């Protein structure tokens, strides 16, 4: 039996692939969105910034910021699920990953449910791919701030999957 792969190599491969995926989306960088990874589980992080305010009187995050955070998280989760499979099966390596342009899913529709006011602090989001076929995918996203059980927004979106030209 071959020895198990060194943990540093496994982490390096996964973290590099995730960073490359997120770095490819300029709008995620504009909003300051980052992702934390535990195994294959991703958590989107939206650090608070004064620019993100929509109602300065309350103050509250702009609804468009919340929708954007949820949609970015859904797209990254969906792309990550595809990338993970390719990477862990060995069909894709870090070398081939940097050479091939990443093709992202395209949003068909997106529905946001604003449950509570977005407070002027960091936000977190996690997406769940409910169905992912060859062509279409359905993704649900939940976002919270201080308390995981008190969501401030949730969304469901449908996506058109990029057509793979290899494999």
């Amino acid at each position, binding site marked *: 039996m071959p020895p198990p792969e060194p943990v540093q190599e496994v982490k390096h491969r996964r973290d590099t692939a995730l960073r490359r995926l997120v770095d490819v989306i300029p709008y995620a960088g504009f909003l300051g969105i980052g992702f934390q990874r535990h195994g294959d589980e991703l958590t989107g992080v939206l650090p608070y910034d004064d620019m993100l305010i929509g109602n300065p009187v309350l103050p509250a995050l*702009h609804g468009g910021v919340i929708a954007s955070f949820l949609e970015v998280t859904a797209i990254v989760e969906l792309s990550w699920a595809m990338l993970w499979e390719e990477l862990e099966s060995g069909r894709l390596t870090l070398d081939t990953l940097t050479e091939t342009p990443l093709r992202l899913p395209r949003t068909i529709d997106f529905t946001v449910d604003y449950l509570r006011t977005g407070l002027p602090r960091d936000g977190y989001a996690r997406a769940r791919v409910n169905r992912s076929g060859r062509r279409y995918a359905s993704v649900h996203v939940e976002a919270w701030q201080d308390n995981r059980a008190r969501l401030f927004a949730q969304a469901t979106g449908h996506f058109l999957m990029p057509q793979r030209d290899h494999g």
Partner: protein
Amino acid sequence: MSDPTSDPTPRSFINALPFAHALGMVLEHVGDGRARISMDWDPRFVGDPTTGVIHGGAVSALMDTCGGAAVMSCPGALTTATIDLRIDYMRAATPGQRITAQAHCYHVTRNVAFVRATAHDADAEHPVAAATGAFTFTRKEDR
């Protein structure tokens, strides 16, 4: 302190909303339950660099702001907040072109305002996105 969003004069309305200002939105028209807001294409707002198409979230922010402006222009409106918003992305907006959203608050009850909106690029005949939303509606006389 009064709510700056309750005085939707073109410049003050956008300047009062930091994120709308950050996206470079311009309020072109507002009144009688209708609003028109536009924003320039910007490389920082791109969602997929292989196509240069603006991220859906930026279009969503434009539609949400436009919907809120339409609600605030309804007679008696004091404050509003989005309850839910659904966006259909009908086609990719052409990179480099300005995007314009138009919203219409088509029905108002005591507590809720219902909104429809569309967004288009230079080709106004073929919208890039359509939205429907429900907004909270508080009236001046309720205060």
